[in-house]
């Protein structure tokens, strides 16, 4: 039985949501150039990477640590194809380079998905983690493509301009990409494909018995996750103007996992909520003497606390608040219908 969510509860979701959208639309007027670029734009592309993880975790039940490695594949492919210092000497049009980077990343994702999609749960997590570390070692060793110093001064499309002196354009591009990713995943969740994926998340054997090709669907989902991660990879190279093995190493891989967990592994919005918390904290602790500038210790402790105390992350906490408020004010005690893509009992 699905009851309509009480007005208060809906207001508690839509109100802050609309406020955030409004703030974002006028962000270049509200924040300094530095803050816009170093915190908000960064949160947008990190959020896209985390969204690819949350899509796989929340809709398909695949917790992948390979998303950063995949966005590295997109980033390195593009950086090698366009004019840059280091990497291969090819100099393509930046848009074409970005497109090929995205395609290459999706291809790698499908190939890797074909191998890993027969593994489940914690095995899948381990295999994708091994893939992530190997990818970063690969780009560190292969000097023809990158080498330890990475690829610098990567050529960008004219419209991206300079992300430091004129950050508004890249901000709006990242915002558009984030909105597109969000709407795409929300839409997919309602299509037969998305529903089949959620069925697989809940019970793969039953879906197999119903005649679904479970490994194929999981592979396609992983390919789609790679496509989303590729967007984050392209944006990260445009934002950084460079990419190196250090931008996709284990620490960065874990950053995206931390963002997803802090935001909430089973709610898509959590990707960007986690990302903004992460970048704000990063920016704030840099100037802070109390912790000796040890951002990683701070974020590690927060991560540990979230995992121990609220496995649903910040979005999970917000969910409990709205549930509570809705119940109190509507006078009913039935649980609110859970949004699509959220697991009732995260394992």
């Amino acid at each position: 039985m699905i009851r309509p969510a009480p007005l208060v509860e809906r207001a508690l979701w839509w109100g802050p949501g609309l406020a955030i959208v409004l703030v974002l639309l006028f962000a270049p007027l509200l924040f300094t150039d530095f803050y816009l670029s170093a915190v908000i734009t960064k949160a947008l592309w990190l959020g896209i990477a985390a969204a690819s993880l949350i899509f796989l975790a929340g809709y398909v039940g695949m917790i992948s640590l390979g998303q950063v490695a995949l966005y590295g594949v997109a980033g390195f492919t593009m950086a090698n194809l366009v004019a840059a210092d280091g990497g291969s000497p090819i100099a393509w049009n930046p848009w074409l380079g970005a497109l090929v980077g995205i395609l290459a990343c999706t291809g790698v994702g499908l190939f890797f998905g074909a191998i890993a999609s027969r593994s489940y749960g914690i095995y899948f997590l381990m295999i994708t983690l091994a893939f992530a570390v190997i990818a970063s070692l690969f780009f560190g060793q292969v000097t023809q493509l990158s080498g330890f110093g990475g690829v610098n001064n990567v050529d960008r499309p004219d419209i991206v301009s300079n992300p430091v002196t004129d950050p508004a354009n890249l901000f709006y591009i990242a915002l558009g990409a984030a909105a597109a990713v969000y709407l795409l995943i929300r839409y997919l969740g309602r299509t037969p494909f998305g529903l089949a994926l959620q069925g697989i998340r809940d019970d793969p054997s039953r879906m197999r018995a119903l005649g679904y090709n479970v490994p194929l669907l999981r592979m396609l989902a992983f390919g789609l996750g790679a496509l989303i991660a590729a967007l984050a990879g392209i944006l990260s190279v445009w934002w950084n103007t460079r990419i190196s093995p250090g931008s996709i190493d284990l620490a960065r891989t874990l950053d995206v996992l931390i963002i997803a967990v802090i935001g909430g592994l089973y709610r898509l919005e959590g990707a960007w909520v986690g990302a903004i918390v992460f970048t704000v904290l990063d920016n704030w602790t840099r100037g802070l003497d109390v912790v000796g500038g040890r951002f990683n210790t701070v974020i590690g402790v927060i991560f540990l606390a979230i995992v121990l105390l609220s496995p649903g992350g910040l979005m999970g906490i917000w969910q409990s608040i709205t549930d509570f408020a809705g119940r109190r004010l509507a006078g009913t005690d039935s649980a609110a219908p859970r949004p699509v893509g959220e697991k009732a009992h995260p394992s």
Partner: protein
Amino acid sequence: MNGETAAAADPAWRARLAAVPPRTLAARFLIGLVLAFVAAWVGYKAAGNPRTFVIVGLNGLTLAGLYFVVASGFTLIFGLMRVVNMAHGSLYMLAGFFALELQKRLSGDGGSGFGSSSTVGDWVIPLVVACLGVAVIGLVMQQVFLRWNQGQDLRQALITIAISIIIADQALAHFGGIAEEIAAPDVFPDSVALRIYGLTYPFFRIFVLLVAIAVGLALWAMIKRTRFGMIVRAGVDDRQMVSALGINIQLVFAGAFFLGALLAGLGGVLGGTMISVNKGNDTTYLLFSLIVVIIGGMGSLAGAAIGALALGLVDAFGDVYLPEGYTNYSVLLIFGLLVLVLAVRPLGLFGRPA
């Protein structure tokens, strides 16, 4: 699986072959082809320069020994408790730092650079202290954070990831980022003569291989022959039943976690003496442990041995035997190895469903 039961009734190999799905058959054929090609390539290279072959082969075996010691702890913990200890590499790294620091204080010379040696006590005492130190850290981690999350494998993995992030950052703050080597005891000769082709080989690497074999045999004997091992084996199969029989399974879990962390520590000190103590070791050895158990199958001791052997040999030969100009692609070989195994056996060579 259906194919096997059908084939059991008919001993003729033709019928057995027909029972194997064509896709599996094709995969097996492809893997046979790859293995044959690799064997032919290694044989061709070995015939060209047998001295290099012997040295590189020994490098691979000794690396495999080190990987086995580390991964056996990882697989022991997983096998019994279904906990993927993502902080295993961090424990390895910490043991190296602890031993190095203690050795410096004991010998009093402030710095034990590469290639120096120490007295036996200055090596053994740091070894024991570092191993016990990380074993206690592992135990505390299990008791404080993991014990009350039993059965939630993802959450436990995330907890150990969080701990590994904190350890990595704190280790960087306290020990710095410069690679150093723990000095080997001076009673060990620098190298041994091999009696073939007049070659010599570093003694300590042989020692690591011997320790690994001893560790493997001891673990095997413990699991197969002792009461503790019997409880561990029973616990792997059905921990609720074991606990219903009146055995304190929590004590066994704690003991297994202690032992697993101890093995990470032992690996850390051996590796720190054989190769180096470095801030990046946590990632590297977590990766190696993951690969070893993904290849061998989680929770299997024999699998860990096979996986370590495969990884060590591929690692050593890949750096040397790839065609000129392509040796920096050697990490792709490790990836290929992983792909090859997962394509045929998603649970690893010796893995079985939970």
